[in-house]
């Protein structure tokens, strides 16, 4: 390393790294020239643990990967297992899954809004508003399965509970509240000059680069690439819903913000449609108590709030998977961090990292 650069460590105990992440930064005065993420502080050996668990037992473990959106992880894993089994899921269960995962997307994006504005300097004001909103959704989860964060709300074959009128009225009330909250946050943030200075033209990533680096999720769409697995490779009846995929143009932090706000609105649209057209019928398919899956392998990916979440499962004919490999969106998105940060100021690293929406539970597994 050239001695004219200053090397500093950001993290692993830095309050803005969204978990225990160590970034080794090389600085030329205040300009970043090199970023070296140092991972593994939250490594729990999940993939190895799963080799000793039955297929159904893995589901609660997936809650702990991306603990901010547990249901999306549940769904990703469960859909992969169901695809491997060739299981047909009842329509009502699919719709309930859609409602739950879209609520989870709102929770993630609205929580992100609080975090990223916090990183940019709006110290905790917006964070408090968004977390009040998130609380309403967590209460819905608590009403539905009984847990708030690591909810384990999806089972192989369907969902554990049906949704009733009380839950639907709770969801509708929360959606109305969110609409109001988004308008308020829009008033505070969208045209605020500090926010514009901190985000416009910062962390720019072109569409070609984004595709080259395998970026997925809202950050990819902010660069102008229209790729959403819900639309392009529909799963769990997403083809029956009418929604738009918002894209940005500049690929900077500001566009990522706009894309995420628009995604919240689209998620609300999906939830309203799902509640209106909720089919009647069973909420779970018949699954044997001891689940043995014939030999084979599968990869299935879904559009999690943070990007493309995929599970690769190899089965060897017993009741335990031989290997489960997870393609976590945060891990892949983290690769683009260095290119985004290069040439920006040190203080922008925190906001760029926040705008990527990475979560260390998912990176380290």
């Amino acid at each position, binding site marked *: 390393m050239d001695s004219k650069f200053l090397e500093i460590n950001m993290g692993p105990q830095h309050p803005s790294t969204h978990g225990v992440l160590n970034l080794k930064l090389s600085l030329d005065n205040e300009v970043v020239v090199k970023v070296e993420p140092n991972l593994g502080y939250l490594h729990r050996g999940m993939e190895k643990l799963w080799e000793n*668990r039955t297929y*159904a*037992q*893995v*589901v*609660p*473990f997936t*809650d702990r990967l991306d603990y901010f959106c547990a249901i999306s992880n549940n769904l990703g894993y469960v859909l992969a297992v169901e695809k491997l089994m060739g299981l047909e899921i009842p329509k009502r269960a699919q719709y309930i899954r859609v409602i739950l995962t879209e609520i989870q997307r709102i929770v993630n994006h609205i929580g992100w809004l609080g975090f990223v504005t916090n990183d940019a300097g709006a110290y905790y*004001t917006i964070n408090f*508003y968004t977390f*009040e909103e998130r*609380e309403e959704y967590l*209460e819905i989860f*608590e*009403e*539905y*399965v*009984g*847990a708030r964060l*690591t909810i*384990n709300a999806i089972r192989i074959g369907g969902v*554990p*509970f049906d949704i009733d009128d009380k839950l639907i009225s709770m969801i509708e009330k929360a959606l109305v509240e969110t609409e109001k909250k988004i308008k*308020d946050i829009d*008033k*505070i*943030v969208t*045209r*605020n*000059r500090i926010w514009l200075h901190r985000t416009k033209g910062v962390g720019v990533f072109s569409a070609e680069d984004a595709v080259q680096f395998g970026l997925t999720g809202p950050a990819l769409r902010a660069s102008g690439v229209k790729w959403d697995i819900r639309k392009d490779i529909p799963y769990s009846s997403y083809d029956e819903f009418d929604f738009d995929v918002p894209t940005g143009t500049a690929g900077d932090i500001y566009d990522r913000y706009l894309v995420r706000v628009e995604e919240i609105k689209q998620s609300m649209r999906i939830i309203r449609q799902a509640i209106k057209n909720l089919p009647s019928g069973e909420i779970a398919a018949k699954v044997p108590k001891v689940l043995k899956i014939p030999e084979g392998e599968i990869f299935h990916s879904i559009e999690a709030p943070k990007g493309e979440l995929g599970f690769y499962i190899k089965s060897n004919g017993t009741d335990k998977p031989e290997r489960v490999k997870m393609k976590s969106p945060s891990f892949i998105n983290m690769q683009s961090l260095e290119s985004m940060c290069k040439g920006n100021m040190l203080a922008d690293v925190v906001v760029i990292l926040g705008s990527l929406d990475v979560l260390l539970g998912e990176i380290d597994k």
Partner: protein
Amino acid sequence: MIIKFLRMFFLVEMIQGMLVTLKYTFSRKATIQYPEEVKQPSERFRGIVRLHRGEDGGPLCIACKICQRTCPQNCFDIEGAKDESGKMRPVRFDWNLERCSFCGLCAEACPTGAIRNSKEFRLSTPDRSKLMFHLSEMYSDYDLQKHFLGEKI
């Protein structure tokens, strides 16, 4: 151009934002003052698991060990034996709170409904050995707060 300048000069967007924060200053407080106020857990709340008794007061558990096999964290250690009337009953029922992830799979799998998640969420204790539960401590009528905190309660 002039409008843009005036907007910038008079800090329009700042005042707009300030008005929103002012509105929130006078809105309903969202914080719950625990422990004076306690939020009621929902009907399906997944707290610590407890064993239940049947209507006749006898244990419901038939020591089938399905919960032991279902639990992803391997919390249970159960041993059963036949009682006087020839029914299988647990003689040893060790359950480890330290490992439990409150997933609720054991309660879903139990064929007799003996084991269920309770609504108890206050599970802190200064004594680590209190986190290992035995058969008599597993029943739903057992005083958990006294168990965890002893005389300090």
